[in-house]
């Protein structure tokens, strides 16, 4: 028996070593590249950097000349893009909100010769974020895009310090920086900070309230973020403004994170609301609809209140098209998934020696508003397939390919983002 145990342990060790060997052989090239990049970076002296900048400038000039000489080539994107490694926080499990984000980022990365490295942070804590940034830097990334803004408020000065020390460019997404506070000052004073994108949470919640208000709803309940969440606070403000505008009453709210992050939880919450507030004729899901909406709908159908209670939500859901078609859902706002993509365009231009601007870019990431079945079908066609911006369009956002592309074009593109804009660009108008 003892011998048998020993044999098993030795066999396990040998098996592990064999697996190690196979795995190591399979990935040696990739890691060698990463190591080279890192070593190159470490060895880079100031003098070399200046020389490199000159070469880059010459390269841009050369590109400009060659593009003006060969107009046909320029329209096809003839510039050679520099390969680099981009670290990104994992947006989480694939769902209607994070899915289009993954798809758009991966299409852009493939088009722009970028290797994407994800860091999964286990706890969503401040400490977890810092550890994830350090691990990404250690893996040899040239730039990092951080997500989930509300969770990282307060640690931006530390992230700025870490990235500046490592000479790694960094951007934020879904993060509103308030002018004058520590986070804002740390970001704008960081040499390597590139951009932040944020959504207008007051607007999105107000839109949801107005969808119900226009239908004559008077008594609503809310499913929202836990108290103290910056995003949740702004959305509450938007709802409050809507309540006053349409003379509505907020009967009750549920913010328990153990319920608001699952379909089962959504069903439980809705059943409680239906039993506690017989007068309720509207519900707003002010975020995380991707988790709770199907449970809420299930409870509404089971209790036969789908015609009595109107429903509007923030954050897209995979069954939204069906729900809008059946009429159980009155409106849903989301699609704010292109913030990281915008950051990638800014970073890619910097990495290619042709920054779109020397300024830090702080820009609002627009929402997509769906209030009909037809709207939802359009989003299904373009948004869910990662074709919000096509490969050809992405190529033309690089100054190396398109020397006429400016920061104004970039900002206009962000400003124009809407369902109509997506359709119009796809149809080539």
């Amino acid at each position: 028996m003892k011998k048998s145990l020993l044999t098993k342990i030795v066999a396990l060790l040998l098996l592990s070593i064999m697996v190690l060997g196979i795995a190591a052989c399979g990935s040696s090239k990739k890691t060698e590249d990463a190591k080279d990049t890192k070593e190159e970076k470490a060895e880079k002296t100031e003098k070399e950097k200046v020389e490199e900048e000159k070469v880059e400038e010459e390269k841009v000039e050369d590109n400009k000349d060659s593009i003006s000489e060969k107009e046909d080539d320029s329209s096809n994107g003839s510039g050679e893009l520099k390969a680099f490694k981009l670290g990104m926080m994992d947006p989480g499990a694939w769902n209607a909100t994070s899915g289009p984000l993954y798809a758009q980022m991966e299409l852009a990365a493939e088009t722009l010769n970028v290797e994407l490295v994800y860091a999964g942070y286990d706890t969503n804590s401040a400490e977890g974020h810092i550890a994830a940034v350090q691990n990404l830097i250690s893996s040899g990334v040239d730039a990092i895009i951080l997500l989930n803004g509300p969770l990282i408020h307060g640690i931006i000065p530390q992230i700025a310090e870490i990235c500046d020390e490592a000479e790694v460019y960094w951007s934020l997404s879904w993060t509103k920086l308030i002018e004058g506070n520590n986070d804002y000052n740390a970001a704008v004073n960081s040499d390597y900070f590139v951009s932040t994108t944020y959504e207008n949470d007051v607007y999105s919640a107000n839109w949801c309230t107005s969808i119900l208000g226009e239908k004559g709803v008077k008594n609503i309940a809310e499913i929202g973020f836990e108290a103290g969440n910056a995003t949740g606070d702004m959305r509450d403000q938007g709802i409050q403004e809507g309540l006053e505008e349409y003379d509505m009453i907020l009967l009750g709210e549920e913010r328990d994170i153990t319920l608001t992050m699952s379909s089962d939880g959504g069903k439980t919450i809705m059943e409680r609301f239906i039993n506690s507030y017989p007068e309720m004729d509207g519900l707003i899901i002010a975020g995380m609809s991707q988790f709770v909406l199907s449970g809420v709908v299930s409870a509404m159908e089971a209790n036969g209140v789908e015609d009595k209670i109107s429903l509007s939500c923030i954050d897209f859901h995979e069954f939204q098209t069906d729900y809008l078609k059946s009429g159980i859902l009155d409106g849903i706002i989301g699609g704010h998934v292109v913030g990281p993509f915008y950051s990638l365009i800014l970073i890619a231009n910097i990495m290619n020696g042709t920054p779109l601007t020397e300024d830090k870019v702080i820009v609002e990431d627009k929402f997509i508003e769906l209030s009909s079945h037809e709207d939802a079908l359009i989003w299904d066609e373009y948004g869910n397939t990662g074709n919000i911006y096509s490969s050809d369009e992405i190529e033309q956002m690089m100054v190396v390919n398109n020397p006429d592309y400016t920061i104004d074009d970039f900002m206009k593109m962000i400003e124009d983002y809407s369902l109509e804009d997506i359709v119009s660009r796809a149809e080539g108008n």
Partner: protein
Amino acid sequence: METNRNSNIIKLKQNLKYRNILIDAFPLLGLIIIILFFTIITSGNLLTLNNLKIILNQMFLYLIGGLGSVYLYAQGGIDVSMASNIGFSAILGVRIMYQHVGIGIIATLLIGSSIGLLMGIIYAYAGIPVFIQGLAMDFLLKGTLYPLSGFKASIPVPDRLLKFDNKYFAWIFLLIIFIFIFFTYNFSRFGKECRSIGAGEIASIQSGIKVKKNKVLAFFISGLTCGIVAVYTLIRTGSASQSTGLGFNFNVMLSLVLGGCVLGGGNGVKVRNAVIGAVTFVVLQNGLVLCGASARAQDIVKGILFVLMIVFTSKMYERKV
């Protein structure tokens, strides 16, 4: 005949000795395999000086947390309210630090240990199951975090606190804690009694061990650990928020399991579990990112390793003589 029997007994004893050594060394072997694996797959990037510094830096909190929890785990207990205790102590502590940094640090330690003490008293004298009590305390503390933070997403720490961000000081402090816990856990009466309670509470009571007193003391130490983690987190992150310490209790539990800790308590809980576990946990997290594994793959690898480790430690501990 008698000689043969004696030689068989000696052989059996020797084999048992080797087997026990192997069982004890299993978590360390696991760590060596993980280090080897990531060293090869990252072409040595894992062991660069810069990355080693990052690993050391990241494992600091798990080491403190693991070391401070060994008494409780040895008794077969667990503190699932550690995360909210850290958040609570950090938010309240940072508010006091604006009056005086030194007093604020002491207050943070006192708040953490007071919550631990309260938990210990309730657990020992009210007889509530440890997990349920932890959950209840977790909800209670979590509910107060938002009002305590002045209804803000985060509170920046006073600049003077950031001057304490000295890694040498931190590691000397950790070394002192390690030595203290190593000796008290292995050689003091309290340490032995903790293991005895984990092995059998009723037998411990019958043999005259003051079980209730020991339970209170173990929770007190766990609470004090939360205070220390809160102070270090404030220094490291520069702010206190509702997400301060989030998930810490689970990460400590996972690192202890990876270090070979037997969750049932008793003699299967060792100080080295905390050390090996913290290193394994951080190397695993760091290595997976370094080798460019996708986020999904990272979760799968971690899940498989945790399950394997729990199965191996429990099965092997059963076989240990």
